[in-house]
């Protein structure tokens, strides 16, 4: 492929792959220049003028570093990867570029997209949370995802393990929904790998968005940057579970700075997975205990009657019902079940085993969690 036949997008994709490339630097390179010139400039093949000259002067080794990077990231290869992965290169001057990002102080210089960005024209809610979510947390995320999708809201999330994935599964369970996933690596390599199918379904039904071109690994530093895009795209951000210093809190902070409403799901004070969300609530976030709370925050009137799913499980009675109820507020150990019911260890073991068999409880590492009817999606 000769230089002339590579579209500008190939040069942009190659530039976005450079080490130490930031949105600001990429915007500066591309301002008033076509991508081919910008690439030549970054690669040190033409004499830089301000502001790039100042940038190179400021960071002594940057010019050298980018000259090396230019040898590693060829526009032809970058373009081929985009084509092979079915990835569109969308720049701010493109009509498809999300309007919500245009006025943003940290607006990305380019987005790599699989699917249809137009779905963002609908009402948008972000659902985020910890990767190591509890069963309860994942079920809540799935329920919000499904019920918001049911109400025609676009669910935006990060496609990570735990809460993120559950929210998307919930949204995908509703026919005609258009979920959007914002990720922190190249769109050709689903991450985590177990989510490959989830990525494909989100791309097919809605859109998958990354600030980085195909081939970019999921480096830790990219996730906070991804979070700012997620925060800027939504109208309401719901944090389902977050640890004391979880990544979701960064998303919540980014949302707060953009006047996006932050809501959090209250959790037990004993649950480490709710330490961050409870902190958000005490810092003034609105509580989200059911989907209606979120819809009200969006200004959508939605007092829909009744649940949309039928629960086929045999209803527990008496002590069993009390055990399920206690496990709903926080996961319990067998010891705690013994303490709260007064049953013998053997009788408590029999009670929880029957509830497990009937699908009301799930045991992980000796903790019993209540399963609500959305768990099959979580």
């Amino acid at each position: 492929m000769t230089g002339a036949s590579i579209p500008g997008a190939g040069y942009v994709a190659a530039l976005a792959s450079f080490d130490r490339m930031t949105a600001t630097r990429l915007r500066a390179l591309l301002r008033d220049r076509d991508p081919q010139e910008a690439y030549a400039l970054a690669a040190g093949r033409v004499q830089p003028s301000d502001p790039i000259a100042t940038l190179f002067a400021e960071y002594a080794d940057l010019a050298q570093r980018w000259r090396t990077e230019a040898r590693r990231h060829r526009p032809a290869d970058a373009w081929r990867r985009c084509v092979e992965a079915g990835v569109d290169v969308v720049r701010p001057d493109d009509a498809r570029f999300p309007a919500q990002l245009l006025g943003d102080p940290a607006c990305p210089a380019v987005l790599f997209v699989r699917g249809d960005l137009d779905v963002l024209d609908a009402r948008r809610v972000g659902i985020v949370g910890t990767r190591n979510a509890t069963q309860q947390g994942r079920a809540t995320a799935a329920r919000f995802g499904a019920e918001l999708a049911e109400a025609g809201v676009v669910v935006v999330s990060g496609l990570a393990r735990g809460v993120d994935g559950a929210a998307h599964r919930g949204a995908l369970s509703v026919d005609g929904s258009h979920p959007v996933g914002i990720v922190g690596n190249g769109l050709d390599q689903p991450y985590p790998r177990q989510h490959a199918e989830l990525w494909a379904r989100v791309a097919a039904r809605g859109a998958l968005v990354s600030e980085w071109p195909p081939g970019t690994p999921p480096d830790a530093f990219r996730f906070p940057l991804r979070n700012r895009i997620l925060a800027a795209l939504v109208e309401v951000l719901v944090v389902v579970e977050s640890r004391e210093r979880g990544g979701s809190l960064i998303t919540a902070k980014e949302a707060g700075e953009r006047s996006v409403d932050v809501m959090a799901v209250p959790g037990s004070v004993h649950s480490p997975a709710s330490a961050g969300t409870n902190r958000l609530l005490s810092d003034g976030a609105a509580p989200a205990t059911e989907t209606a709370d979120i819809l009200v925050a969006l200004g959508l009137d939605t007092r829909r009657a009744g649940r949309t799913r039928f629960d086929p499980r045999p209803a527990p009675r008496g002590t069993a019902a009390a055990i399920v109820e206690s496990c709903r507020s926080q996961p319990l150990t067998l010891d705690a079940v013994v303490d709260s019911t007064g049953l013998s260890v053997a009788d408590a073991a029999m009670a929880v085993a029957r509830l497990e068999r009937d699908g009301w409880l799930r045991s992980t590492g000796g903790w019993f969690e209540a399963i609500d009817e959305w768990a099959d999606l979580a």
Partner: protein
Amino acid sequence: MFASISSAVLHGAVGHPIRVEVHVGKGLPGFTISGLPDESVRESRDRVRAAILSSALPYPDIRITVNLAPSDQRKTGSGLDLAIAVGILAASGVVDPAAAQAVAYVGELGLDGSLRAIPGVAPMVGSLGDEDVVVPVDSAVEAHVAARGTVRLLQRLDELVAVLNAEQPWPEHEPPAPPPEVTTSADLADVHGQHAARRSLEIAAAGGHHLLMVGPPGAGKTMLASRLPGLLPALDRERALEATMVHSAAGVRLPAGGLITRPPYRAPHHTTSAVALVGGGSGSIRPGEISLAHCGVLFMDEIAEFAPKVLDGLRQPLENRHITVSRSKINVVLPADFLLVAAMNPCPCGGGAPGACRCNAANLHRYLRRLSGPLLDRFDLRVDVHRPGVDDLLASTGGEATAVVAERVRLAREAAVGRQGCLNSRLDGSRLDRFAPLDTGGRAVLRDRLERGRLSARGYHRVRRVARTIADLDPRQPDVIPERAIHLALELRAPFDEALGRVA
């Protein structure tokens, strides 16, 4: 010119009587020992010579020949020193040969002529039948516990000359002070909450089921394990002697009465070497921790941190209840019938309530894989132990006291032995069908778990064994195992490593 002296050597934890035949006669000066001595026995030539000379006794600078009989058996250790020295003194006429040959001798000599204690005096003295025996003062307790003849205590070689020549009576030495009594205040009554873990200790004690406790640091796993020996019945005379012999052979000081009557409790650290755990060593073969735990409890905290090679060494004893330690030319069988209690964290970070774990999947897998499937399979009981709740810690009363639980354990063990001649952990397939029938509810529960792939065939047998013990602990001791016992047995066999796709 010739003397034949009675002594003994140690082979693992077993003593063997030896005749030390000494000939002192004409020829070039020299000192040879025949009869399969190993290096440690050959070294006794220098110690014996120095000890005789520094005791101001005449040393015959002519040809000394020592033969150790029976000649087909390897002899190790320094316990023959005293017998060889006495043989030389008798054969060269320094002491009365008849008097010298009337007593047996076990003990090492110092270069200064003092007598030194050696490991294994109890089994060695025990092997001498009703012979009277002379031992170092420091070996008094061990010799007394095993001797059927009279035990004579000596501090120095020169004391012996006057006694054997009938110039003085046997000296009266005070035996050394016994080691301070280990005060075991560890009572189950001090344990707050921990219902499931307490129950699993009781079941482990009653059925002889190996127990794995999985829980975060601070959950009290060590505290719980240390209470298990208190639930086990005292050792009968035969078992007490076995345990005592092993302790003696390992050079561990015996309690005041000599006999070990309570089940031992050993808790080797996870840095313990394979030799220290299963036995062996250069020189003579010493019993390891697993043999010291014979008839008692072996507690392995942080079991996943033990070296894989060390853990491998547990396979044979867990299967056969003894260990064969092999060295060049020597095979020693040591007893190792112990109740294994192990503890580990659920994951490298310690885990805790759902959502608390910060481990990534790769680290978690690596950690869980350290325990091999065959080893994990040995644990009939795998219980999740949690940090006790604040309410439990504040509760003024603990649970049942050790004495109360131990009585239930005793009755359950008697029921099992009366029914089938062994503890429930030793029931195998056909005898399980005969002695551990299930009610319809319990059968349905197990069938359901098997069909859903949540119980392996091996797990199926182990759950039934544990359920048998649970039923035996019930005061009614039902013949048919009820469903609730099955549920508890299943709950106490948590598939904590489901991340590896293993099932109960």
